[in-house]
């Protein structure tokens, strides 16, 4: 039962991503062409409201359901890994038209060729893990 809430959040997330068309390859293409405000509106409003939530959580020291103080993990300080990693991700994002969340959602919409893309993404993650210590971070 403790996993039910995560299942429900996932279902909600999947529905929102389809109904917002954020899982559409065309919408990602249009975003990178700066030809529509749609994706910027989605990400922008999510970030603005998300920032308000995070600020509120820190301000009123709200606890999570496990009774612990909420702490969002800090990311490692670096520039090179984010520029390189981010750019490589961006190349794939614009080609696939989907990032990791939408890949699963699209599989659910019945696009079975997405299994190839997901398999390749797992392989990409594996190769990163193997090469990790040789890459500049």
């Amino acid at each position: 039962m403790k996993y039910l809430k995560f299942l429900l959040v996932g279902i909600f997330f999947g529905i929102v991503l389809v109904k917002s068309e954020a899982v559409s390859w065309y919408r990602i293409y249009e975003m990178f062409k700066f030809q529509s405000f749609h994706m910027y509106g989605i990400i922008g409003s999510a970030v603005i409201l998300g920032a308000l939530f995070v600020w509120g959580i820190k301000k009123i020291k709200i606890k999570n359901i496990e009774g612990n103080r909420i702490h969002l993990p800090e990311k490692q300080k670096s520039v090179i890994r984010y520029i390189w990693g981010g750019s490589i991700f961006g190349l794939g994002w614009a080609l696939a038209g989907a990032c990791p969340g939408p890949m699963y959602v699209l599989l659910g919409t019945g696009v079975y060729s997405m299994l190839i893309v997901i398999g390749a993404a797992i392989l990409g993650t594996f190769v990163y893990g193997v090469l990790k210590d040789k890459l500049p971070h």
Partner: protein
Amino acid sequence: MEFFLQPWPWYVSGPLIALVLLLLVLFGKTFGMSSNLRTLCSMGGAGKYADFFKLDWRTQRWNLTVVLGAIIGGFIASQFLSDNSTIALNPKTVLDLQEMGFSHVGESLLPGEIYAWENIATVKGLAIMIIAGFLVGFGTRYAGGCTSGHAITGLSNLQRPSLIAVIGFFIGGLIMTHFILPLIFVA
């Protein structure tokens, strides 16, 4: 009911995505979809090849459950909550794509030119899917997060690393969209 079946505007969808972030944080977790790729590697025994995968994947079962939900959500939305309307893309975008040889632009979520099942039997079609997935999987772990972890969660937490990562996402995305896609798709 009609509103549910139509595509939802950005000012409804964006705040609902922020709600996903809030719920996961209140549940004592974080919002990060690409971590599941690492978890799947660990489950498959990748710990034998790199310490990076030596983690107890059982601690990540909650996130795999979110993935399962996302798949179900995609099914529900496409089967029961869609009116199959054409995506209201900028006409200029449609024209640009038609010039690259895309047909039926916006009539479904994904272009058949990339995702048609028959494409996995062609070298070009299969190569596009594999390269795209590989770049996403490699890049997201190198950058330490994807759209959910960096662009939504990281920016919401005002973290400089996430801002740099998002700039990276756009460097790669703009290069692909403006310079590489026109080389791959020629009408």
